[in-house]
């Protein structure tokens, strides 16, 4: 049963995928598992779909763990999926969101990388695709989207952890998401979850100019960060990627925003204890719980401001 799962622990890809099956089985009228394609090493990529209605509804996309070593991210996504399933019908706000919108949650956005962090190298960040002519493996999948691809803040060196890849969407993991978003249509929100350093960001990363919706997204981000901080006092910075971290091209939310999904945000989850990618498992539930408040805040806004 999905109810006996230990959310306060890190799990392998197989365990997470098995758990997704049990969640879908426990909540058949709300949760389904949608395969969006295969990874480079032929692992299936599954998004959980939370839906109470017809297929043409507006939807919110959430993905987690595109950088595989950021383990608290995938763990937060697992907790979040369970939260959505268990709170539907109980929590008024979430129920009203799901009565209007579908939510898609890609729990492990980089399955090959995640498996590799468990089997070979806990510090692995990239995909596992081979780079012709180089001994180095993998592309930074968050430099591989078709948004300012190859510009500042991405490396041309296949051995770099921020290598942008040979061409935009060369990584099948990125291409699968792009295809799915385009085919499904009607996405109104796009949220990518990373860790760590406590940031809530909106586009752009490839350019430091303000986007047309800058004021609105800044206000939504600040409201979400305030909600997040209300639980444990965790402090987040809010701003555009370029202005609050650094100029970085080929990022996912830049692509989604340019594609027309106005409410595009990226989270960098907490590391209040200075553990970086090695956040102890006892921090998973506090991290996920506070993140949930921000996610809910953004989703409420999207529900009330469909366009």
């Amino acid at each position, binding site marked *: 049963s999905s109810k006996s*799962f*230990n959310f306060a622990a*890190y799990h392998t890809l197989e365990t997470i995928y098995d758990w997704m099956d049990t969640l879908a089985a426990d909540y058949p009228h709300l949760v389904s598992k949608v395969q969006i394609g295969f990874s480079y090493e032929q692992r299936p990529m599954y998004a959980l779909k939370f839906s109470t209605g017809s297929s043409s509804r507006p939807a919110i996309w959430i993905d987690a763990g595109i950088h595989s070593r950021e383990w608290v991210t995938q763990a937060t996504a697992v907790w979040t999926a369970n939260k959505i399933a268990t709170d539907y019908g109980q929590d008024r706000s979430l129920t009203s969101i799901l009565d209007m919108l579908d939510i898609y949650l890609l729990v492990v956005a980089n399955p090959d990388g995640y498996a590799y962090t468990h089997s070979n190298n806990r*510090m692995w960040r990239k995909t596992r695709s081979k780079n012709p002519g180089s001994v180095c493996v993998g592309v930074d999948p968050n430099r591989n989207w078709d948004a300012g691809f190859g510009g500042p803040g991405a490396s041309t060196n296949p051995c770099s*952890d921020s290598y942008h890849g040979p061409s935009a969407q060369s990584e099948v993991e990125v291409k699968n998401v792009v295809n799915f978003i385009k085919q499904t249509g009607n996405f109104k929100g796009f949220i990518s979850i990373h860790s760590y350093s406590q940031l809530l960001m909106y586009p752009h990363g490839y350019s430091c100019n303000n986007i047309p919706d800058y004021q609105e997204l800044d206000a939504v981000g600040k409201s979400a960060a305030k909600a997040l901080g209300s639980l444990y006092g965790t402090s987040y910075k809010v701003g555009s990627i370029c202005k609050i971290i*650094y100029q970085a091209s080929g990022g996912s939310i830049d692509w989604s925003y340019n594609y027309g999904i106005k409410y595009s945000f990226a989270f960098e989850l907490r590391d209040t204890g200075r*553990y*970086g990618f*090695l956040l102890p*498992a006892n921090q998973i539930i506090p991290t996920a719980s506070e993140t949930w408040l921000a996610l809910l805040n953004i989703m409420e806004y999207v529900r009330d401001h469909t366009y």
Partner: protein
Amino acid sequence: QKRFIGDQVLRIEPGSNEQISVLQSLQEEDDFQLDFWLHPTNPDLPVDVRVPIASLQAVKDFLESNGIRYSVMISDVQEMLEQEQKEMEANRRMER
């Protein structure tokens, strides 16, 4: 499985744009095999970098000689990974 015995993660506090430039030059240095967890971007943000044990002294000397403040954020990466592994195994046993 790759091991990280004796590797440290340093938290560097750059105090100026000049120090950011110095750290960016360190980032280009392939010989040290550095793994930047947080990149040098502006003086308001810390820089976290995993330093393999073989480069540790050289990197610390480099920072000190450039007057750049740092502290040890994780003193032995492998120790933390082993702790993480133990916890995962304990959790798996508990579930069974």
